[in-house]
């Protein structure tokens, strides 16, 4: 089982509750904006504490009764909608940030290969503010891969891009799914995008309604 998630969290007036268990490959978390999809990713990454529930990825429990791994020990490769690169570090230093922190046995992809795979060799000396949206997103994906993650969380990675860039990043994500064989949880509100990429689909609105009937 790649993702085994059953969490609930109250945020202000909103009740976020979702439950799903999916096999290998790319799981799309699909639903309208504001449905709490990003909050679900934050709970899996350890950035937001669920009120109750459990989270396990690839058989390892990240959160349950009495278990709450801090984010730095969950080994999630989190790619944010806005890339979220560190503005005071050049691209190379951004890429190295997680790589340097990962245990040698946890790294499964090298710097050269990552840079090559994503086609970002010419960007290494640049500052994040000088990158286009597509470039920044590729660097963010590289930064996540180099931290030696056991799974990827992708939060609308195409949302801030124009359509040629979208196609380009979508190809990259397809290759990560097929060549690197990493469980991916992919958040989107775009049905076409999801249908092209996803092996499994979870509709988050449905999940919330299910929970409220219990």
């Amino acid at each position, binding site marked *: 089982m790649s993702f085994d998630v059953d969490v609930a969290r109250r945020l202000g007036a909103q009740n976020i509750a979702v439950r799903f268990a999916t096999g290998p490959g790319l799981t799309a978390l699909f639903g309208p904006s504001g449905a709490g999809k990003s909050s679900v990713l*934050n709970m899996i990454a350890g*950035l937001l504490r669920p009120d109750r529930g459990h989270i396990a990825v690839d058989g390892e429990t990240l959160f349950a009764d009495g278990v709450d791994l801090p984010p730095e020990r969950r080994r*999630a*490769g989190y790619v944010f909608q806005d890339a979220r690169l560190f503005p005071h570090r050049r691209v190379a230093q951004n890429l190295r*940030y997680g790589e340097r*922190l990962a245990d040698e046995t946890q790294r499964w992809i090298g710097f050269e290969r990552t840079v090559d795979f994503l086609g970002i060799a010419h960007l290494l000396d640049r500052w994040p503010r000088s990158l286009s949206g597509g470039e920044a997103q590729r660097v963010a994906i590289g930064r996540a891969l180099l931290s030696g993650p056991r799974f990827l969380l992708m939060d609308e990675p195409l949302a801030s891009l124009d359509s040629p860039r979208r196609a380009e990043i979508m190809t990259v994500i397809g290759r990560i799914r097929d060549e690197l064989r990493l469980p991916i949880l992919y958040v989107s509100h775009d049905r076409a995008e999801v249908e092209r990429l996803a092996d499994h689909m979870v509709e988050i609105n449905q999940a919330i309604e299910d929970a409220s009937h219990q």
Partner: protein
Amino acid sequence: MLSAAEWAIIGLSLKVSLVAVAATLPIAFALAWLLARGRFPGRMLVDALVHLPLVLPPVVIGWLLLIAFGRTGPVGGWLQDWFGVSVIFRWTGAAIAAAVMALPLMVRAIRLSIETVDRRLEGAARTLGAGPWRVFFSISLPLSLPGILAAVILGLARSIGEFGATITFVSNIPGETRTLPLAIYSALQVPGSDGEVTRLAVIAIVLSLAALLASEMLARRFRHDDRTGHVL
């Protein structure tokens, strides 16, 4: 152009200010962090206390320091018993007065900078494997650097200009507590010392302008770097 005594005054002023700012910086940072990030009862009270030196007459601060650091005072008695030292009438006392007066300005500058740090970047660093302390030193601290530098410059400028609390607390002793503003004041009391007053005043203006220019240059540099932390 300047006499040896005047150079000594400049040297003393710089020593007092540098020691005051260096000693205050960690305290100011800790308070700024607490006020920017902390959620605890009494936060408003801490905020108000930090700002007191900004709004109280400096002579009142000097008087409070005199009570606290006097030989029988709560802090002064302790210093006397344990270390056999007293800061009254000493340059170290002048540094303490300058530090207290500079504290609110420094806390404000650093706090503004901490508040502009995007906390989502800290979350991103956590997911990449960094523990809370590493996130602090590799992300939060460097991103609040503009505010820290601004605080140092503001603190130095405020310390060099400090007068009321200093003269109340440690008096006006040549070579020990007579810093630049006190020297100007003393010279004004002596008939026929216009030349000395002018020279000392020009030094004060030059030092203040240098501090302003330095802060402006830093602000520009960081604006250019697109780290939104410039605070001056």
